[in-house]
């Protein structure tokens, strides 16, 4: 077993490599296909945890505050982040509504909560029950969290409507933008290999 711990296989081409310690902020790439095998991220647990906690707070703010309001012919229409999904559900598009809610809100929320559940105790060397399953879930959910795509969608639709009405941004828009940036930061700071090794079996 001692032999296997020091080996790593490339997830894209299966080539075996010996694990060597890396200098700070360096990446080890596969010799054959160039995939990133592992990285040495400085303070990966602390940094990812900080971003995940902030992200959760921003997600709550984004859902409680006004998002965009549309001013046209003297009347003002206010919306929240979930108005779009609600309207889709009313127009018998429940499937699409659920998909939008999942990818823009629920998946990022569950992902961040799972990360906090794993990383917060891990800071003190504690591994809560089901931590391994939670971390696996967080990694599995990563591609389904699409807040940055949603944000681009907001920008495109605002440009589209700007010719016919005045659109006023609300607090939720700014907190959502910060959430997008924080989720990107979590992806940069989180090095799964380090976290797996620090979690006790």
């Amino acid at each position, binding site marked *: *077993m001692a032999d*296997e711990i020091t*080996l*790593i*296989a490339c*997830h*894209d*081409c*299966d*080539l*075996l*490599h*010996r694990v060597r310690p890396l200098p700070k902020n*360096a*990446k*080890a*790439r596969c*010799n*054959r*296909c*160039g*995939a990133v095998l592992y990285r040495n991220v400085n303070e990966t647990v602390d940094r990812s945890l900080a971003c995940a906690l902030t992200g959760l707070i921003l997600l709550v703010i984004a859902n409680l505050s006004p998002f*965009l309001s*549309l001013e*046209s*012919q003297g009347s003002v*229409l206010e919306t929240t982040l979930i*108005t*779009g*999904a*609600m*309207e*889709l559900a009313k*127009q018998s*598009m429940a499937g*699409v509504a659920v*998909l*939008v809610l999942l*990818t823009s809100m629920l998946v990022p929320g569950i992902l961040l909560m799972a990360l906090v559940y794993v990383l917060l105790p891990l800071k003190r060397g504690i591994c809560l029950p089901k931590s*391994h*399953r939670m971390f*696996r879930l967080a*990694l599995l959910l990563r*591609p389904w969290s699409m807040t940055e*795509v*949603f944000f*681009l*969608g*907001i920008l*495109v*639709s*605002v*440009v*589209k*409507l700007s*010719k*016919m*009405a005045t659109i006023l941004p609300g607090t939720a828009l700014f907190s959502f933008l910060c959430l997008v940036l924080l989720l990107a930061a979590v992806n940069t700071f989180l090095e799964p*290999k380090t976290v*797996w090794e620090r979690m006790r079996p």
Partner: protein
Amino acid sequence: MTAALVPKPRTAKQAGLFNCHACNLLVGPAPSTSQGVVRCPRCGERLHLRKPNCIQRTWALVIAALIFYVPANVLPVTLTTYVGSTQTDTIMSGVMYFMQTGSWGIALIIFVASIVVPLAKLIILCGLLVSIRRRSHWRPSERTRLYRITELIGRWSMLDVFVVTVLVALVRLGYLTTIEAGPGVVYFAAVVIITMFAAMTFDPRLIWDAMENEDERIDE
């Protein structure tokens, strides 16, 4: 920097080691449990030498996505009603609208995200599947890189679904103009989801397997 290479055997499969999909732990030849399921001792994920039935599953998902791609582009994604008259818009007519109003950047973003990306993804996956079938030796690292790109860009196709969601939220019933989501959105969302699953089911290690063992069956 590149990691140190290990002399023969060169791949985990040749050494009889399972590479855990979830946590990348190398697990030695473990005794399988009564149900024939081998699980990772660290994270509990099911272990396979290669993703199971990868070729068949990926083909099935690619073909399903290609079928949905047609209604996604032909059917309207938005129905705009202005003082009684209704205008339907497909994804392409949305792109044309931005071009005509001079927003070239946005027209390009939507065109690439909604039309080019899903089609390119499907073509790349088909090409990779055919190349494995033909045991191609042609540029394996470039083919692996193509796969990594398809995995990364797929999510951006959701752009149009989100645009419709925000439009529907902002332009609601009771005002002079209303926007409703059209049936195209459903098919479009289906294309995005199915192509994402197709990319996840595909196992790029088969590109390399096909070059190594000439007489062995590829699909594990």
